[in-house]
Each structure stands twice: as C-alpha cells, then as structure tokens.
C-alpha cells in the first residue's frame, strides 16, 4: 500500500494554490490534513499528478467571528476548532459534532474544510453545515463564489466544486438567541463513519432536522412541531432512499430516522428552552 508517484508543492499563499490548480488541468489536488486523501493515495484509488499543500498558507488558518457568522478557513484543523475556548458558546452544534469525527489522532491533522471537500455522505461536518444552512466559500483564479451547503453537496463524494476551485473557508451562522441544537450519531464503533447521524436546530420559527449517512448527501427538512411530527419523519425516512450496506440495512436506517430523529428534534427543543431560561436569568 504505497502511493503512486506525484509531485508536491508547498504553497505559501492562496494565489499559489489557485495558480497550481488552474495550471494542472484537473491533475492537481489540494492536500489539507491528508486524513481522507492519503488513505486513497496509499490504496492507489487516487492518482493525482501534483499535490498542493495548503497547510502553510497563513491566510487560510483563521477562524473569523464577526458576531453573526463563524468563518472557518481551509487551514483550520478539526482539533483546533474543538479545542478553541469559545466554539461551544459560539456554535454549539459544531462543538457537539466534532468529538464524533474520527479520533483525536485524526482530528489533530484533518481540517474542517477538507471534510467538506471530501463530502462523505456519512461525515459529521457536511451534516452540520447542512443543518445550519452554512455556506462554502469557493475561489478560483476565475471567480469567487459562495454556495449554500445543499447546493454544494451533489452526490456521494461529489460536489459542485470545479476542479480549479479551492474551498477557502466554510461559514455557519453563530449561535442565535432562542435557538436550540442537538446532535446524535449511530455508528458501529465510536469514531466510525455514521450509519445515521442527526443534527437538529430549533428556533421560534422552525424546527429543522438534517440527517447524514442515509442518503447520498446530507438532507435537511423542516418538520412540524405538532402531532404531525411522526408522519413527517416517516415520510422523511422513505424519501431518503436508504440502501443496504455491510453495516446496516435500509430498513434499520429508516427505523433510526423515525425513532432517533424524533429524539433529536425533541432534544433540540429542550435545548432551546434551557437556553432561553439561561438567557432570561
């Protein structure tokens, strides 16, 4: 299990990255934390001609918080975000999901944006981004654009990113008063990719549940808070078109959507109430 040959370039600026991606005609790949890419290199599933290392680009390694949104640069490692003193306060859902993402030994290298770029349907961060209506900030030499999560993830490990585009950052809304959050994941072992993962956001306007691991991309729905909840979850479960795999049957996944989906939305509502109480005092 050794990679095929490739060239390597350690970029110092975003422009270097964009230039390399532009020139290579689809033969270059960004390497960030390497936690998804290097296994694929080792198995020779991926055979890029050039790897562009973005981890030494200073401009990409920040988390910006303008009060309304958190913008997480492409160089920010998962562990950095997890250990940041105010992540839980500024966006609870991120803090809830990060400990489920692999292991400390992979989070220490893996980046937030790398996980988004990789777009594994069972991954936690694409789910959180979808639940929060986050955005992906793309840049190429030609243009810069922002895509909402749901437009970005187009299939299993397939995204709307063009080959010459870099994900510069992802952004999510910061915690908002009167909003509750909940997260839960079912996997075979702790640290494994999810069989099904759930992220819910409840505010005074709506109750939103996003589910990962079931369909080919994370999917979100606005659900009723009344007695229509169970029917809505059942419809959601069927709409996800779950499939059987080695670890779980489609039927089991639908069952989780109905049962755990319900628990997670209720937990988000409880969280909202608890937060409201705290804000009041």
């Amino acid at each position: 299990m050794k990679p095929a040959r490739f060239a390597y370039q350690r970029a110092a600026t975003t422009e270097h990255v964009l230039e390399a991606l532009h020139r290579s005609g689809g033969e270059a790949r960004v390497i960030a934390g390497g936690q998804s890419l290097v296994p694929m290199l080792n198995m020779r599933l991926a055979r890029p001609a050039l790897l562009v290392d973005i981890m030494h680009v200073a401009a990409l390694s920040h988390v910006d918080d303008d009060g309304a949104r958190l913008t997480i640069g492409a160089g920010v490692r998962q562990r950095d975000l997890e250990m940041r003193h105010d992540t839980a306060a500024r966006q609870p859902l991120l803090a809830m999901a990060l400990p489920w993402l692999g292991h400390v030994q992979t989070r220490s290298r893996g980046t937030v944006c790398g996980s988004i770029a990789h777009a594994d349907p069972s991954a936690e961060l694409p789910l959180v981004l979808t639940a929060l209506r986050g955005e992906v900030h793309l840049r190429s030499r030609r243009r810069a654009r922002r895509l909402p999560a749901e437009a970005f993830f187009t299939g299993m490990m397939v995204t709307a990113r063009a080959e010459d585009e870099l994900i510069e950052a992802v952004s999510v809304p910061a915690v908002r008063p009167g909003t509750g959050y909940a997260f839960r994941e079912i996997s075979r072992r702790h640290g494994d990719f999810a069989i099904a993962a759930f992220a819910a956001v409840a505010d005074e306007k709506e109750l939103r549940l996003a589910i990962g691991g079931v369909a080919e991309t994370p999917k979100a729905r606005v659900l009723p808070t009344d007695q229509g909840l169970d029917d809505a979850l059942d419809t959601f479960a069927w709409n996800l078109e779950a499939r059987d795999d080695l670890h779980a049957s489609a039927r089991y996944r639908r069952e989780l959507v109905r049962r755990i989906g319900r628990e997670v939305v209720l937990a988000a509502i409880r969280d909202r109430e608890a937060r409201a109480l705290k804000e009041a005092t």
Partner: protein
Amino acid sequence: MSRQAPAVLDAGQRHPVRFTLNGRKAGGEAEPRMLLHDFLRHVLGATGTHVGCEHGICGACTVQIDGAPARACLTLAVQADGAEIRTVEGLALAPDRLSALQEAFRAHHGLQCGFCTPGILMSLDALLRERPDCGEAEIRETLSGHLCRCTGYTPIVKAALAAAEALRVPHHA
C-alpha cells in the same frame, strides 16, 4: 502573483527532508510519495514506530507531530519537513530509565507483543501532558484511536490511570 511560487518537488525525484526528531536534528532524502513512517523507519532507522494498516485505523504508527498525536502513515515525509516529531524512542528519560508512563505499562502488563505499544504510548503521552487529571473515560476515548489485539485494553487502561496518578504525585523518591 504576489510572490514567487514555491518550487514543485518533482515526482520520482528525491528531495531533502529535515525535521527535529526527539529533540535532535534529523534529515534525509525522500520522494514526495514517501510516507512518514517509511522515512522514519527505513531512511532514519528509527524502527520503534510500527506499521499495521497504512490507512489510518490501527494507530500503530502514531507519532507526535508538533506536539499532537498523529498518524505517520497518513503523513508524507515532505509534509513533515520543518516539523517537530516525537516518537517512542524519545520517551525514556535515559537509556536505562523509563518514563512514568512506560513504567506503568510494565507494572500493569499493558503490553503483550508490544507491536501496538509505541503508538499507544505516543497518544497517551500527549493526553497526560494536556490533561493530567484525565479519568478512565478520556483514556478510553484516546485509546479508541488504536487497535490492540493482545491485551483486551483492560491492562492498558489500568497502566494509563496509574501513570496519570504517578504524574500528579511526582517524585516521591
């Protein structure tokens, strides 16, 4: 462009790689595709770091990169250029004096074949440094990034708890 683009390290050519290994300067040459564990073991001769899967799951290859435990098998040697690397060879206080963590493993039979052990020690060493007051749940959480087929983990958990205790109440000698 703002600055001269950094050189492309050509495929199939060897390039110098230098870093600090256990506090000392170390260096050699590697193709861009060479994995860090191969560089450590076969270029630098530091064979204490083991290899069990080369896809990031078993944890045998875990080393510390700039202080954080990480998989050598998912790191290219060229990525480590300029970094600070620590491996199991750097844990002992002296050739004949094991660290508290190593001693605890010995006392509690935290190893059998010893193949998984170097990686586990590197993760626990980082954990105990970061969170000296950690308990069993955190230890098991950290260990979940490692596979051990011999011990069933129970003696490893005991060893880690004992090491944490010893580090909290140091030097009763």
